[in-house]
Structures are given as C-alpha cells and as structure tokens.
C-alpha cells in the first residue's frame, strides 16, 4: 500500500503544519522522520542527520507525540513522564526536575499525581505533549495534538504549540485535519493527500483573500440582491447569504449603499477567504473514502 510517495519538501525552523485527510500519509511520514520506518526509496534528513542511518541520534534530539492513545492507565503522569525522560537519556534527578517544569508548562497541576486511567482527553493530550518535551528536544513532531479536544481545550493546545515554536525555541511539525486551527498557528503549511504533496507554502498565501464577497443582511435579502444587480453588481443568493463577485473596489460602496438604501441591517460583509477546507476538498474529490 503506497503510504507516502516521492515527497520532496524541506521544513524550515518555526511552526510548520502538515495537513491531510485521515489516511493521507501524515503518521507514516512522521514515523519515517523518526527513523522508525525505512523509506522504500528516496532519502530524508532531520536536524542534519540522515534518517536511514542515524535513527538513534535523531530520536535523541526529537520529541514525538503520537496521535493514538499511548498512556498506561495505572501510573501517574509524574511517574510516567519521569520514566520517559530517563528513557531519553536524562539522569534521574534531571528527569524529575524537568518533568515538574514541563508538566507545569503544559498546564497539568495537582492531577499529575493521579493514575492516568481517570484523565480526561484534554489532560491525556497534555501528558503526551509533556513526554515529548521532557528531554528538551530541538524538534517536536506532534500528530494531531487537538484530537478529541473541545474548543477551550483546542485553544489551549494551539496556544501551547505556538509557544513551543516561539517562546521555547523548539521547532514544531504539527499535523491536523481540522484545518481552521492550522491557519491560526503555523508559519508554513505542507498539504499532502493520498501520500502526495499538494502544496507547500507559507500559511499567509494559502488563505489569500479571493475576489469573492459574502454578504448577509438581516431582512429582505431578495430585494437586496435585486438592488445590487440593478447597480451593476454580479450577485446571487446562496442560502441565507449573498455571494458578490467583486469587479472592483467600487462594489464595496454599492453593497453599502444597497443596504443603507433599503434600511436593512448589514450583518456580514466578508472576503470569501480561500479557506483551507476548500483547498483540501477540491483536488481530492471523488468518493474515495480515506
């Protein structure tokens, strides 16, 4: 089964997003970067170390947070992360010290002494992140860190990922299929689907504004569309919204004047950003279920 095929990309320091549907090859790529999965062809190097030959050296400097559950239920977070730090080569005293530090940074307070079996999804994700940071890596690979988190949890985790990339000075490669969040966090994005590279560019231009306006009025939107078309603006209704094809900046004023003229409320006027969602759905298409 071709999980990842002829992918060529180089990832600069900072926070980089790896986007793809379930089964698009994200986890496979991460395992190859860790030197755990031999690439059938081609080569890769992480922090200057060749993946094929210098696996252990890479794994000493890299932190990995898997997407799937990986925490034993009968041990506490503190005990577990100390153990993991030692397995990364830290002596016991340093491991204990760094664990306390890292658990505080990821926001685990007094629950850290309870067995992890009773942890919520959010707390589990924090422990998984802590064990990836405990040995102070140069690079962390985070596989869908916000999986299963609610909005509050998601924002915390994304804030954390952002802090790791900036304040902690650790490079981050984070994967996700919830696209909105990568927009808010990453400096650059690599989009892969079915194991192939779709696009690799800085986040800014991936979500560049396109020439489409989305307008919503709180009443008489039919008349509103007529007013626009009679003012020479190409507009058509889309559900309770109105889509306007922007011919020039003048159209902004025509929208404003149409709303003012009819005395209706202008609830929404937005440039239809090329949301990553469309970018992601469009090329894959078809019924193939990843």
């Amino acid at each position, binding site marked *: 089964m071709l999980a990842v095929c002829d992918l060529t990309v180089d990832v600069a320091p900072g926070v980089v997003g790896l986007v793809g549907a379930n089964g698009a090859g994200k986890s496979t790529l991460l395992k190859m970067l860790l030197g755990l999965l031999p690439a059938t062809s081609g080569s890769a190097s992480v922090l200057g170390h060749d993946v094929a030959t210098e696996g252990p050296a890479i794994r000493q400097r890299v932190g990995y947070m898997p997407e799937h559950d990986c925490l034993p*239920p*009968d041990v506490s977070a503190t005990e577990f992360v100390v153990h993991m730090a030692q397995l990364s080569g830290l002596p016991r005293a340093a491991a204990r010290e760094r664990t306390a530090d890292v658990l505080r940074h990821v926001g685990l307070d007094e629950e850290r002494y309870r067995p992890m*079996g*009773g942890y919520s999804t959010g707390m589990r994700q924090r422990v998984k992140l802590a064990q990836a940071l405990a040995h102070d890596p140069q690079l962390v690979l985070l596989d869908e860190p916000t999986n299963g988190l609610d909005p509050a949890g998601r924002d915390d985790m994304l804030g954390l990922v952002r802090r790791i990339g900036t304040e902690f000075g650790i490079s981050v490669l984070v994967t996700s299929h919830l696209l909105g969040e990568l927009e808010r966090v990453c400096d650059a994005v690599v989009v892969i689907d079915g194991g192939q590279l779709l696009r690799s560019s800085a986040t800014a231009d991936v979500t560049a504004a396109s020439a489409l306006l989305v307008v919503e009025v709180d009443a008489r939107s039919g008349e509103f569309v007529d007013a626009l078309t009679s003012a020479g603006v190409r507009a058509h209704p889309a559900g309770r919204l109105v889509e306007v094809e922007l011919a020039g900046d003048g159209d902004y004023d025509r929208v404003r004047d149409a709303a003012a003229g009819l005395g209706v409320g202008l609830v929404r006027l937005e440039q239809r950003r090329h949301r990553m969602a469309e970018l992601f759905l469009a090329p894959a298409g078809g019924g193939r279920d990843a």
Partner: protein
Amino acid sequence: MSPVDATVARLTAGSLLGRRRALLLLALPAVLLVLAGVARALSGQDAELSAFLLSSFALGTVVPLLGLLAGTGAIGPEIDDGSIVYLLSKPLSRSVMVVTKLLVAVAVVLVLGALPTLVAGLLLAGTSDGLAVGFAVGAAAAGTGYCALFLLLAVVTRNAVVVGLMYALIWESLVGQLVPGAQALSIRQWALVLTERIVGGRAEALGADSAVGSIGLVLLVAVVVGATWYAGRRLRTLRLTSDA
C-alpha cells in the same frame, strides 16, 4: 420465548474461539489424550495409574483451565473492549444472554473436556470400574460449575482470570491439601461425588472419592443456578466505563 438466542450463541462462539484462544482450548485435551495413549502403550491397563491421571490431570488441570478459558472468554473480551454494547442495546432479556453464553461455554468444556476425559479413561482403563464414565461425568459437572462461576467473575471484575486462578489453583488444590475444610467449597470435590457414585466400591481405593458428601451436588447446582442468576442481574446494570 426460548431461554437461548441463536445469534448471541453465534457471536459468543465467534469471540470465544478467536484464533489464539482456540489454539489453547484445543491444546489442553490434545495433551491429555497423548498422555493417556503413552501411558496405555507403556503400562497397559493399570487402574491406579488411570485414576491418578484422570483425577489429577484431567479433572485437576485440564477441566479447570478449560472452564477458566471458556467461562471468562464467553463474555470477558466483549466487556473489556466495549462491544457488549451491541448486545445490551437490544430488546433481549439479560438472563437469556447469560444462559446462552453459559451454554456455549459449557458446550466447549463438554466437547473439549468431558469427552476427551471419557476417551482417555477408556484408553487407560477400558470400562473397568466405570472409571472412564465416572470421571467423564465428573468432568462435565465440574466444567459446568467452573463455567458458571468464572462467567460471573468476568461480569463482576476486569481481572476475572487471575481471581479464577486463585480459586482453582490456590484455594482448591494448595489450600485444599493443607486445610481439608477448604475442600467443602471446592467445585472439583462436589463433582467427584458423582464420580464416586459411578465408580462405586473401589472409588476409595482408586482415589476417585470425594472429600464431601452428596451435599456437594446440591452445592454444585446451587452455584451454577445462583451464579447465572446473579450474572444476569449484574449484566442488567453493567456500566460501560472505560477505565482499565
């Protein structure tokens, strides 16, 4: 409405006879039969040896292990990974589920425990002293008792197998030897009452007798019925929390 549901039986058999567990279930009787064959080839029909083999190995080792594997395996895996929810969300009485699962487990123990004990017994001692039939019936009774008890354990606790082991190995055999009184609560001794009746006079001499009187049978039936009834009640209120 019949007390047994064919689909539950088929699902249970499917999860009970998973590849690895089936291997283990088949290995046990296989060893018993090989052993009986070797013993027969080497020392011909020897009553004392046959009784020793049937009592200590067949009834003492193979049957409790089969009961453990079949009894816990009939419902344990489904509760452990949560797939029991597909049974619990059906308009099906919980006691029908438990009875069906018990019958599947007992069937396994009969086919892979009692029957091979009969064959081994015939191989070892022919039909003399009714040893073969006696121990086969004993194996069937003990097997049923073990299945009922261990199935209940699987509903009540996540480490049913370890607790079951502690009962079958430590309580029944180890403690049983040191403290004879403990044998009053041993399923094996209750089943031996049947064996003793079938073997008759020479049961004592051949070591096929039971340390408890015929009250043992009453206790055996009580355990089977009681455990099954209580397992049904507990299944009705089973909470699917996912803690380990």
